[in-house]
């Protein structure tokens, strides 16, 4: 019967909450108890390096474009060898929502999230991390990839020196 169902539906939750009232809470008492997040946890963002130790980031601004809260800003610049790099790179962790979209957008595997979640600070400016705060000495989750070995731009190797390229053509030659 409908009325019976309604009354039951109204009273049942009271019973449930009353039961919960006497159960042990599931809350983890954070500063006293800590948990170890899984390796793929999305917390503090870092900039990783190539296997050869050079910076991975090419300042393509895809992470800042993907960022839904606009917490990443940077300026690209050109090194002497034509390499594009970030002249400055800034993540405002007081804005960051740790969604991880930046890492998905990154074409060079440079920007990665880490399980280090304890970055709270009373001084907001200390949450604004510059490139030197973000750079780590390691490859992070991807230990092989080096963008410039595949990009076709002669930075790591000479032009045409990557494994899937012929050497530079001579447009003035008519030989096949």
């Amino acid at each position: 019967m409908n009325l019976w169902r309604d009354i039951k539906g109204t009273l049942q939750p009271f019973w449930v909450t009353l039961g919960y009232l006497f159960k042990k809470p599931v809350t983890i008492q954070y500063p006293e108890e800590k948990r170890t997040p899984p390796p793929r946890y999305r917390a503090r963002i870092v900039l990783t390096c190539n296997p050869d130790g050079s910076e991975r980031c090419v300042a393509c601004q895809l992470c800042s474009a993907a960022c839904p809260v606009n917490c990443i800003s940077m300026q690209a610049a050109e090194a002497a060898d034509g390499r594009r790099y970030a002249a400055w790179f800034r993540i405002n962790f007081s804005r960051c929502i740790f969604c991880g979209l930046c890492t998905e957008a990154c074409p060079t595997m440079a920007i990665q999230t880490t399980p280090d979640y304890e970055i709270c600070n009373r001084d907001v400016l200390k949450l604004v991390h510059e490139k030197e705060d973000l750079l780590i000495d390691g490859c992070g989750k991807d230990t092989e990839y080096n963008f410039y070995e595949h990009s076709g731009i002669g930075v790591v190797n000479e032009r045409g020196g990557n494994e899937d390229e012929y050497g530079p053509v001579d447009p003035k030659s008519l030989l096949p």
Partner: protein
Amino acid sequence: MNDLLISLVLILVKLGLILGVVLTMAAYLVLAERKILGRMQLRYGPNRIGPGGMMQPLCDVIKLLTKEDFVPDRADKWIFLFAPGLTALAALLSFAVVPFSPPVTLFGREIPMVVCDLNIGLLYIFGLSSLAVYGVVLGGWASNSKYSLLGALRGLAQLVSYELALGLALVPVVMSAKSFSLNAIVMAQADWPNLLRHPLAFIIFMISITAESKRTPFDMPEAENEIVAGYHTEYSGMRFGLFFVGEYINLVVIGAMTTVFFLGGWHGPFLPPVVWFILKVLFVAFLFIWARGSMPRPRYDQLMHFGWKVLIPLALLNVVLSGAISLAVNS
């Protein structure tokens, strides 16, 4: 003249006592609500300030007092400023007629344990509860914000609608006490409480008083996931605090009213009457907190339908039935 002076002093003492107890109760009800809700949701609730979070209300008060008191641009400033006070005041004043213990004889003087035993006490409470709506409505209107206005409109319609059912639910109580005086109503329940005599009235009363006090599940005027914070969206600091305290004083008042009207007031075995009274009030307060932990918010139109199409006819029917029964029993 001496007599007048003594009665004045007595009134002031009682006022001070009530004010102190009620405000403390209100403050700790906030904590209690947060802790109980927390446990119902398998959390701890506030537990950081003082032992078991007992100093939390103090911190809240300090925080509210030190926050910026903000008046929105183009708000109707004066109405905006006095509206929260109106809410808190109306709730506090209701206590003037609540008897919390049988009269005590002190120094040969019989002192009624009520500030003012009005013979229209029930109507007085009605009057004040219908005035409490002004705080909500004017505050919401003066904020010059669409959410506040929507909250105020909702609050207004809700309060007006459920006041009818509330009044009708109390008619059997008045009929059996044959008086509007709360003292008389309590006295009339010396043998058994009205809860047993008028169970339907009790249910209607509880539902409509929940709506009247804007508590969950009938917190439409401040439904935070629809209209930010409703009528007090634009309030900050202690003015918000006044709305907040008003709500919890109201909770105490409701507890007291329910106790007086249905739970037999201070009557009870073994324990002193005041203790019985306070225990009953706290139990009712717990019921409200429990309801908040258990019930979802209905839609606004559902609320209106329920009030006008179910509750009021039911209350009318209850009046007729109670009248008939009491006629039959008496004759």
